């Protein structure tokens, strides 16, 4: 067997960049400085063809949304007129953004699963409230994540993306040297439905859009592309527009029902039908130059995305083509849109020191499409280390959050509401790392690695 010294020598010889003298500085930075760079100048990409948005469908959707809103308003007026006393919408009160003291014996007194419910119901009763003249109705204790079981399943592939679709769970992942698309009805058993047809690799998001499924990939010969299927089993290859950047992969994708959007650093690909695509660079889309998009989700009729640069900014767009900044994070904060629920967008992320200090997991919410508020979670304080928010699950039974902390891996907290979260101390999560989450039916699937081996953790509720 090799000695440690021999191993170290072999490691040194394997250095991919052994000869630093051969690395010529490109002096881009100096050039930018000479040009009076303000920190935002960057590559200017060649304008490409104009996107044709499905204006008719978008107008129709807007009209439908207006009618739906009108019906809701009228319905709400009717309910208010009919019901006095208990406010059924109390759970919609905004969540407290300051730490809420949680005592060990503080009961979760509400059956409402809304994350904010625990906060709003924690308020003491009005002193002047008249005593109840009749016996209070017997209420069942709320069902929580404790009323369910976690089942650990070893996966034969490393899932990079998993999405809930009409066919069940669809994943893109890798096993050995190939990448493929997998389908599962329950999360326990997976079938490979497309076996790495291209020589680059699949990844970059699995999206269901307008009745079809899309998986993004890269081919060494054909460049960036998208695989498209209408039934989940027969897939065809669609080319994405050629862009000036020859490196990089499609990082993610989202659909708002009308537009299918994929992104790669500072380039956005858009399509209405998944077949004809246009590419917009940062200058065309209104995003700043030299940005690196970090996560885009479609929620509530808009796309939301954050960019990472020296400044960290949350952008919103209702078309995917024109983006407007809606929030600039503090200089020691960075969040990315993670999940939307009941009109509120939640952002996971981290805070950090400007120097070499550790990053710590953090969470934000945007209740009104404009204001971003930090959610302080005393429960999410873990041993010092590099940490960030991995997964946010908003479920009928409550809230489940996963945080990554170096070097210990994933840590979970869960509870009926944001103010009543407790650490999930289940040995099934020992050695868990890189967790992502998806909900399907009333189940939750976390996928990641356990001790370096791909696994899925499937939570099934028990009534």
């Amino acid at each position, binding site marked *: 067997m090799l*000695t440690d010294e021999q191993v170290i020598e072999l490691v040194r010889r394997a250095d991919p960049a052994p000869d630093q003298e051969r690395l010529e500085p490109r002096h881009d930075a100096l050039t930018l400085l000479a040009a009076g760079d303000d920190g935002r100048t960057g590559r200017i990409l060649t304008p490409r063809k104009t996107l044709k948005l499905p204006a008719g469908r978008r107008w129709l959707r807007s009209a439908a949304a207006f009618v739906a809103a009108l019906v809701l308003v009228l319905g709400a007026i009717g309910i208010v007129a009919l019901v006095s006393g208990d406010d059924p919408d109390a759970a919609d009160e905004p969540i407290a953004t300051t730490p809420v003291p949680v005592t060990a014996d503080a009961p979760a007194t509400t059956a409402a699963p809304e994350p904010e419910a625990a906060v709003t119901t924690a308020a003491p009763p009005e002193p002047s409230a008249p005593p109840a003249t009749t016996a209070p109705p017997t209420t069942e204790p709320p069902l929580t994540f404790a009323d369910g079981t976690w089942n650990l399943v070893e996966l034969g592939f490393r899932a990079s993306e998993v999405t809930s679709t009409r066919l069940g769970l669809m994943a893109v992942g890798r096993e050995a040297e190939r990448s493929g698309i997998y389908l599962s009805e329950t999360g326990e058993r997976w079938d490979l439905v497309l076996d790495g047809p291209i020589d680059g690799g699949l990844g970059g998001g699995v999206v269901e859009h307008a009745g079809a499924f899309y998986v993004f990939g890269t081919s060494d010969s054909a460049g960036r592309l998208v695989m498209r299927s209408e039934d989940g089993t027969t897939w065809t290859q669609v080319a994405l527009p050629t862009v000036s950047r020859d490196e990089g992969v499609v990082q993610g994708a989202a659909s708002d029902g009308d537009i299918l959007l994929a992104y790669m650093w500072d380039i956005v690909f858009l399509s209405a039908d998944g077949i004809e695509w246009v590419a917009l660079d940062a200058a065309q889309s209104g995003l700043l130059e030299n940005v690196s998009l970090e996560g885009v989700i479609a929620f509530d009729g808009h796309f939301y995305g954050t960019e990472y640069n020296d400044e960290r900014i949350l952008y919103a767009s209702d078309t995917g083509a024109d983006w407007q900044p809606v929030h600039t994070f503090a200089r020691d904060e960075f969040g990315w849109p993670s999940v939307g629920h009941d009109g509120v967008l939640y952002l996971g992320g981290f805070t950090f020191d400007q120097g070499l200090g550790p990053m710590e997991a953090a969470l934000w919410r945007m209740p009104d499409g404009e204001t971003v508020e930090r959610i302080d979670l005393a429960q999410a304080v873990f041993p010092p280390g590099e940490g960030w928010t991995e997964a946010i699950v908003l479920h009928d039974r409550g809230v489940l959050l996963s945080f990554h902390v170096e070097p210990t891996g994933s840590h979970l907290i869960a509870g009926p509401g944001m103010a009543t979260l407790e650490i999930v101390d289940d040995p099934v999560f020992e050695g868990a790392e890189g967790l992502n989450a998806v909900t399907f039916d009333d189940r939750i699937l976390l996928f990641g690695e356990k001790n370096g081996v791909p696994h899925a953790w499937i939570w099934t509720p028990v009534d």
Partner: protein
Amino acid sequence: MDAPEQRFTRLYDTHYRAIVSYFLRRVGSSSLAHDLAEDVFLVAWRKLDHLPSGDEGLYWLFGLAKKLLWNHNRKAATRIRLGHRLRAPGEPAAQQPEDQVVRNDDARAVIRALGTLSDADQEVIRLAYWDDLPHAVIGELLGCSRSAADVRLHRAIRRLRKAMARSGHFQVEELQLPAQKET
């Protein structure tokens, strides 16, 4: 006192190669490595007044590089995709003359074995033997003490040694390496 432009130019000329090498060792794409290095120096320019001098400045740049790289790789999904697309580190960037084929074969085997370790093990090995950073700085970058970094590195090398042995690629008698110590 030097003008900011002069200070920055000196910083850039002195440390650019170390920083781009840092990225080359981790992303495998020359273009991407240069892009990320460029980002490091743009941030450095904006923070020039707060930048320590000498080696401390280099370590500060490494800390910043680490954050930029970390953000680049943040999502596990992205990491997996990039890992597939951008090849194992060293393969394309280290396209060497034909007489380097054997060395590259060994290098690929080392990198494959390295890839079987945890991210933390891989990183401490890279920082120590590719980036050649002092262990105190490694500790700072990893958020632990120097002695903890020593322990991590020792354990990581042990695990790498096992992984390399499992690969069956390395036959000790064929290697012209430091002799095996007497036990």
